[in-house]
C-alpha cells in the first residue's frame, strides 16, 4: 500500500499515520493542488511520481 499525499497535507499525513500506529506507512508526496488542475497536469504529475510509487510498492 502507498498513500499519495499532497505537499500541503504532508504534515497531516504524518500526524494521522502516527496516530493510527502506522508511522512507516509508505507515502509519496504530490504537488498541491491536484484537484481541478486538468487532465494534462494530472498525467504530468503521475509520470513524475510513478517511479517513486513503484519503488515503495516493491519495498
Amino acid at each position: 500500500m502507498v498513500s499519495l499525499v499532497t505537499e500541503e497535507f504532508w504534515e497531516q499525513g504524518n500526524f494521522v499515520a502516527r496516530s493510527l500506529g502506522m508511522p512507516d506507512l509508505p507515502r509519496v508526496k504530490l504537488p498541491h493542488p491536484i484537484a481541478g488542475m486538468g487532465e494534462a497536469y494530472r498525467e504530468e504529475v503521475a509520470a513524475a511520481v510513478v517511479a517513486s510509487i513503484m519503488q515503495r510498492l516493491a519495498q
Partner: protein
Amino acid sequence: MNTATKYLEAQSEEDALELLHELQCTDGLPVIIPTEKRVHDFVLSCGQDADMVLGELGPAMGRATVEKVAAAAVMAGCKPDYMPLLIAAVKAAADPKFDLAELQATTHCTAPLIIVNGPARQDCGPVASGYGALGPGHRANASIGRALRLCLINIGGGRPGVSDMALRGHPGKFSYCLAEAEEDSPFPPLHTSLGFDAADSVVTLLGCEAPHSVLYSDNADDPEDADKLLYILSVGLANLATNNHIFAQGSALVCLGPKHASVLARSDFSRESIQQRLWELTHFAKTEHIRYGGEFGSAFKDDPEGTYPAFKAPENILVMVAGGSGLYSMVMPNWGGAANANAAVSVKVDNDFFCEIPGLSGN
C-alpha cells in the same frame, strides 16, 4: 495507552497561561488554569472515576478520560454543574458514527453543534434556547461548547494547518451550543423524535456549518403561508453551494424560530411532515449536478435524467425550535463526508452521579 493526566509546572498563573498558549493547548483565548485541585473538584462533582474512558477522539485517537474532560471544562470556564452535558457531548463525539477524525481533518468548515434537550437544560445549565442562544452572554452555552472544542484540540489533536485542515473554519469552532426551546415549541421535543423519552435529558451532536439566517415574513391570511415558509427554508437548506446538494448525503439542521414554528403548526404540520416536505423540496435536477458539480458532477453522468435528493432520507433533516420570536429561522447544512456521512449522534445525559461540592457552586 497511558490515560494518566500529566500536569505542567509554572511559577505563576500568568506563566502557566503563556505556557498553555505556547503548547497550543488553548483556542487562542485566555483560559482558566486547570490546576490539579480545580480539575479534581470537577471530577469529584460529576461522581465518576477520574480515569474512566469516555471514548477516543480523533485524529490523535486520544483517550478522553473524565479527568482530561474536566481539565477542558475548567479551562473553558464551565461550572461543575455543566459536566454531565459535556461528558455526554464527548461521548457523542467519540461515537464512530460521528466521524470525528475525518470531521476534524476536513478542509470544509464544520464544527460540532451541541443541542440540549430535556430537564438537564436547567439542571445542568441553564443552557439558553431563546434570544441570542448562539451568541455571547450565556455562560453555559459559551463554556460547554468551548470545553468540547478544547477536548477536540487537546485530546483529539485537532490543530489548524496540521491536523485540522479547515481552510477557514467558522466562529462556531470556538463554541457552538444551544438548547431547544421546548416550552415555545408547538412540536414534541427533538429528542423524543430520536427515540428518547420526554423525561430524558439528551445531547445531540451534529457537525455542521455556521448558521445561515432564513428570512420569511409570514401572513396568517395567506392559505399558502406554511408552504411558502417551507420553500424558503429549503432554499437555504440545500442550494448548489452546499455540500449536501453536491455530495447528495449527510444531515442538516433546521432551527425554527418560535414564530415560524407556529406558522407550520397552525397548518397542521408535525416535525415528521416538515421533514418530509423539506426532503421533497430538496430534490434537484441531475443536469444541474453534472453542470456545476465539478469532479463530483460525474455521479449521475450515466443516468442524467430526472432528479435526486440532497438528503438520503427525511430523517437526515433535523428540526428543532430555538431563538427569540421574529421573522428569522436558521439552517445549518453539514459536511456530509466520511464513512457515516457525518451523522448526528444523540447521547442520554447521565447526571445521576452528580453531587454538589461545597464552595464550588459559585465558580
